[in-house]
């Protein structure tokens, strides 16, 4: 949403069923934006918030679920002048994905090592 968008234009924005949108009027400059993630909840919201806050260029990152009966999550990012909110979001998604890959790798390595108690059946 360009900064020149008037109040009128914002009111006429159609309901977007897409996965990610910027909440109208929240990106007053490229360093800040509130992203609206459709069909996402605390699962992604909280983990993404954490990974964003780990980024040194991020001044503020937080998420909220505006209404419990709507399946969407708002994610607010404010960054330093060195980057933009959208770029930071891309980096956040990448970083969290890398963490997931790492967990998968360590999990598989651990399974292959087999250094744990294995029960064919019966209680622990």
């Amino acid at each position, binding site marked *: *949403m*360009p900064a020149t968008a008037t109040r009128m234009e914002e009111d006429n924005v159609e309901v977007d069923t*897409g*996965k*990610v*949108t*910027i909440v109208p009027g929240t*990106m007053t400059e*490229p360093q800040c934006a509130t*992203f609206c*993630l459709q069909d*996402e*909840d*605390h*699962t*992604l919201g*909280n*983990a993404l*918030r*954490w990974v964003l806050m*780990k980024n040194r260029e991020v001044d503020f990152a937080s998420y909220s679920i505006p209404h419990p009966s709507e399946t969407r999550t708002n994610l607010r990012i404010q960054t330093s002048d060195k980057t*933009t909110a*959208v*770029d930071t*979001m*891309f*980096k956040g*998604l*990448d*970083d*969290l*994905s*890398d*963490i*997931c*890959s*790492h*967990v*998968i790798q*360590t*999990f*598989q390595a*651990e*399974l292959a090592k087999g*250094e*744990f*108690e*294995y*029960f*064919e*059946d*019966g209680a*622990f």
Partner: protein
Amino acid sequence: MDMYNGGPEVSIRALKKDSMKFVLSNTDLSVANALRRIMIAEVPTMAIDMVEIETNSTVLTDEFIAHRLGMIPLSSFDVDRIQYTRDCTCTLYCPNCSVELTLHVKVNVDYDDMNDPTIDKTRQVTSLDLVTSDESVKPVSDDRAHPILIVKMRPGQELKLKCVAKKGVAKEHAKWSPVYGVSFEYDPYNKLRHSHYWIEEDEKLEWGVSANAVEEAPIDPNEPFDYNAKPDRYYMEVETSGCMKPEDVALRAMTIMQDKLGGLQIKLDDEFKEDTQRWGY
């Protein structure tokens, strides 16, 4: 990227056919919680979703039986091969997006035994009576002596129906959850003071330490409270319904997380590439 202190570590403590204990460490609570939430609600499995009842003269109503059928766990090792019905090109359902299971039980009246009270004439209709069209998707029951009871019938009653099992996630209905329970604990000694125990007289007497406490050093009463400390070891135990292996549930959960992130990235790319260019960045 830097993995933030080397990245998360996983240590499997015990593995069983239908459950697994593991420790996830060196990561944030939000990541551990995301794993837990996805295992519970977003790992796809197969479950009966539509039931066409042809004959039902049992004591249970059609909807009662349909509901019971939906709850039966179906083996879902091969669920990736099956499409979601909403993504399929068919109009209602087809072999690409569903598996059919049929059930037909009729209890004949045996006039010789009818008046003999010593003979149990009750026929137990169980998950073993379901006949599947696809061997990879069938009711979970390793123990043939204790299958899942659907309804009890007396002589003369009949039940004939066709079930359509579909792929789904527990976010939509809990019957699709691959797990019966995921236990999740951190900080068994409550060093971080995240728990506030309700006590009558003595906390130590009334609240024993959990089994996971053996993995950590006991609390030193002289140590001052570290208000900057954060949880970093998460003790988890996954118990599956038997529809998938527990290690597969955990691994699948992480790939689902990646899929979600990848999906967001693609969408973000489409939506905002122009916008950022307009800003001159």
